[in-house]
């Protein structure tokens, strides 16, 4: 019962803050509301007993990626006065793109079957031991390939940002 109330509360927070991300004028406020949204999503993971996923979600998204986002926003010091005026063509194009993406998401969600979470009897599901066994046992090869992909992306980013000295 209490999980149901928590679910509605977290859902409300997530959607409300997600809307504020879009409607805030100040980019710093947008980024901060996005962090609150991430916390609400992490709360949903906790409700699904996926503790590892929840902790990593907070560490990686709220703790690392958003810090870098805010770092960049602070460095550029974006505010309303010096923000370049965007032409209406770009605005219309952006709105259209957003609507198309929304349409795709809604269409994809409409086709999915709602699967009841059946494995509540297994208390170990979503815990770190189970996840480790699955990642390093069943899905060993795809997992390792994705780590190599990450490594190559990291090396590529360093290489691109390095200026050649003559």
């Amino acid at each position, binding site marked *: 019962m209490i999980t149901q109330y928590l679910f509605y509360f977290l859902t409300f927070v997530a959607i409300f803050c997600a809307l504020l991300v879009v409607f805030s004028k100040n980019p*710093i406020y947008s980024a*901060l509301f996005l*962090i609150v949204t991430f916390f609400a999503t992490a709360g949903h993971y906790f409700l699904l007993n996926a*503790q*590892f996923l929840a*902790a*990593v979600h*907070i*560490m990686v998204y*709220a*703790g*690392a990626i958003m*810090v*870098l986002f*805010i*770092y960049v926003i*602070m*460095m550029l*010091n974006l505010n309303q006065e010096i923000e370049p005026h965007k032409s209406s063509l770009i605005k219309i194009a952006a709105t259209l793109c957003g609507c198309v993406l929304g349409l795709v998401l809604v269409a994809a969600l409409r086709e999915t079957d709602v699967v009841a979470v059946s494995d509540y009897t297994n208390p170990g599901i979503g*815990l*770190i031991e189970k996840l480790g066994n699955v990642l390093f046992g069943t899905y060993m090869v795809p997992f390792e390939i994705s780590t190599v992909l990450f490594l190559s992306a990291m090396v590529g980013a360093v290489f691109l940002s390095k200026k050649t000295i003559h």
Partner: protein
Amino acid sequence: MLSSEILYKIILILAVFAVTLVVAMWSTYAERKVAAVLQDRLGPNRAGPFGILQPMADGLKMFMKEEFIPGQADKQLFVLGPCLAMLTALMTGVVIPWGGDLTIGGHAYKLQITDINIGILYLLGVVSVGVYGIMIGGWSSNNKYSLIGALRASSQMISYEIAMGLALISLIMMTGTLSLGEIVGQQDAGFANIVYQPLGFLIFLICAFAETNRAPFDLPETESELIGGYHTEYSSMKLGFFLFAEYINMFISSALIATLYFGGYNFPFQHSLGLDGNMLSMLQTFVFFCKVFFFIFFYMWVRWTLPRFRYDQLMNLGWKVLIPLAILNLFITGIVLGFRNGFFI
């Protein structure tokens, strides 16, 4: 859950909260006394015997000062900054085991608020979120010094979090658990983790200094270059919150170092003393606090001994020394564990 259990948890949460605040308050006094001893001065000695009431006087001063918000500052975020700094500083205390079990009326109560099985991940999560208070405070002040302080704080914390996480991964590989309660329990059965992870401990210690913004890594608030860094524009109790959060962080990270690497509340030959459960638990809590106070003293000792790093030196140390060392430590731990579990034979 029993209602007495819930009541006990509430009492324990309040107790940990109160102890954290009291320790942080008197850490400010201890810092000035330690500085005085190291510099051959007397230190505070006016308020009460040996100046022991100095934190009270400082607190009163902080409360009585004018509450000022600069005109160009972002008002909501300016208030939110110190609140977040305090909140994240106080959040870590819930997973630290403060002592053994207390038996009251035939029921054993743990001296740990919660022993979640992702304890270390929770810690890393809170640490990684901890930078927001400083960032938001520094940015919303609308002052160039504050902004530079905030930028320095965020880049420093992100850089040292990586080495800290890698050092902790070696520890997790060795202990095979993420729960702090179990890590302490294992150190009761065997040696303290410092014996197995000396390099990991060194990396963790250096990163803890950087994460708490303490000297020699206190670049976000260098008074000689940035006035006060991120808290230049702050006054009154909002400044007090920022300063206080630093002392709370210092206390909590000392407790963590003691828990993870120095056996937590365990001490040698504790089971051959022949004490009954409750007495032993109290003695363990006492020993734990002795360890914690030693590390708080260590923080102060380093602060008043070493000069501050330059910013590029700080970044070089983080990325080019500590991260490779942490990875080396990870490799060595992996190889040793592999031999022990017979993977190579």
